[in-house]
């Protein structure tokens, strides 16, 4: 096979992998649409969005409280995890001695692989009682945010870590030579240069937070409620599916798939907005 031909096949192979990977989401959305169709056709989409009350056996199907719960817990977790994750990566590259950096990295990698059940168990047995002593019932928006933060932090940290590791050494050395301090080099040169990777990491982490199920289910309280404080219980969209799917039938079951569809729509919105924002500052 001549080299141009081999290269052509190679490129087709890559394109096929990309197309196939992208096609998975189409399959998943198609599946959700089919499964939620009975409920959408019967009840109409409006019923799900206009009400805050969710009592499937009583014919109340409002999801807005759960949408708010999902958004608040995700937002809180990302606001905590993104800076902490970036600080972690900065620490590994510019502060820690080599051995400490390796140890710290191992620890963060370990966090990435701990099953959500274990996070949930820890949250339920350790974290929630502490919050409950302070402000009952303990299972709350706050508990959900804290557990989610721990779970998504490795995503930001590891992605930021590899991005900072890729910056050409000359760039950093040059900055030092110009007389910039360590903090100056980090926050004026290194972090801005890695901002695309940091954005990708944060986006992946946000998506993970929205989709996280088992751990949140155990610590969020599970009550369909529009929270007015951090200490009130909430129910996220994922918790709704996990709590009720095993025991739901007919319209109820189908409505839980609508919950899944709403989640995916939320992620689509997020991704589109992030894409738009990412487009503006071209170059770099």
């Amino acid at each position: 096979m001549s080299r141009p031909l081999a290269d052509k096949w190679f490129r087709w192979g890559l394109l096929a992998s990309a197309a196939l990977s992208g096609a998975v989401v189409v399959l998943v959305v198609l599946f959700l649409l089919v499964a939620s169709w009975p409920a959408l056709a019967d009840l109409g989409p409006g019923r799900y969005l206009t009400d805050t009350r969710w009592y499937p056996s009583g014919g109340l199907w409002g999801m807005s409280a759960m949408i708010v719960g999902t958004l608040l817990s995700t937002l809180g977790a990302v606001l905590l995890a993104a800076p902490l994750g970036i600080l972690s990566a900065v620490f590994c590259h510019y502060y820690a001695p080599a051995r400490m950096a390796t140890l710290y990295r191992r620890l963060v990698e370990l966090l990435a692989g701990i099953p959500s059940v274990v996070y949930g168990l820890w949250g339920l047995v350790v974290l929630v009682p502490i919050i409950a002593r302070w402000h009952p019932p303990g299972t709350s928006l706050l508990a959900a945010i804290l557990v989610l933060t721990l779970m998504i932090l490795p995503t930001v940290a590891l992605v930021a870590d590899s991005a900072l590791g890729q910056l050409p050494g000359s760039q950093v050395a040059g900055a030092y030579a110009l007389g910039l301090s360590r903090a100056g080099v980090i926050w004026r040169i290194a972090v801005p240069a890695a901002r695309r990777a940091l954005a990708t990491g944060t986006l992946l982490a946000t998506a993970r937070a929205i989709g996280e199920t088992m751990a949140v289910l155990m610590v969020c309280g599970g009550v369909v409620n529009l929270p007015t404080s951090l200490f009130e219980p909430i129910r996220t969209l994922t918790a709704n599916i996990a709590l009720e799917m095993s025991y739901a039938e007919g319209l109820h079951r189908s409505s839980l798939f609508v919950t899944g569809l709403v989640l995916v729509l939320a992620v689509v919105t997020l991704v589109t907005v992030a894409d738009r924002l990412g487009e503006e500052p071209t170059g770099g």
Partner: protein
Amino acid sequence: MGWYDRWRGGLLAIGLALAMAGAACSSTADGAKAYPHLVITGSSTVAPLAAEIGKRFEQAHPGVQVDVQTGGSSRGIADVRKGNSDIGMASRALKTTEQTLLPFTIARDGIGLILHQSNPVNELSRQQVVAIYTGQITRWSEVGGLDRPITVVHKAEGRSTQELFLHHFELDNRQVKPHVVVGDNEQGIKTVAGNPDAIGYVSIGTASYDASHGVPIRLLSVDGVAATLENVRNGQFPLSRPLNLVTREVPTGVAKEFIDFARSTQVIDLVEGQYFVPTAGG
């Protein structure tokens, strides 16, 4: 690159997907099992028991494999209806819409109210339980306890424990004002164990096991009847549910053998080992 190339890629992707699907299908055909293979799906409450019975059944019937899968009672019912499984598992009695199916009770399970061990309240009347769950009583001092806010732990909609509880106390789910909604029994127990002001309701077997193994919870009597496995067994305890195996048609062959085995005295120790109440031999 032009649109032409993109199309090529798309076709290639579809081709690849088809090839994968084809390979998958043919491998299933090759791997089709010659020996009897019993598939049982449904309630996660029944699943550990069914799996243990399955293991003993496999020992007594060499060559037979019993595969137990979870996914909830409604999934068990749906799978049996569609023929996706041989036997379903349901942790409740069949509903009126499910009367075409055949239930086989293998054990019973009671549902009891639990408090944190440090809670000084010893008894709650029916009215007090209703008032607590509907949010009319919000502090323990109103029922003879400490001056602390009550944390009401409720179960998620559709769970059979929740349906039984609501039915027994003649409550509508919309009246209930919970602070925590949980799924599985152990989640309920861990929630109450971690909060001195909580009240919840869970499987009596699970609760009495945990209470006797150092978990700080306590079972309350209901309508004056102590929440013990003994009272569930003799039928005095008002809140109990059957654990059922379910089939679509009158079972035959291995399925019949398994159901008979699961209802026989040969598995009483297994039923008690999972802290349920045996129905066989009575």
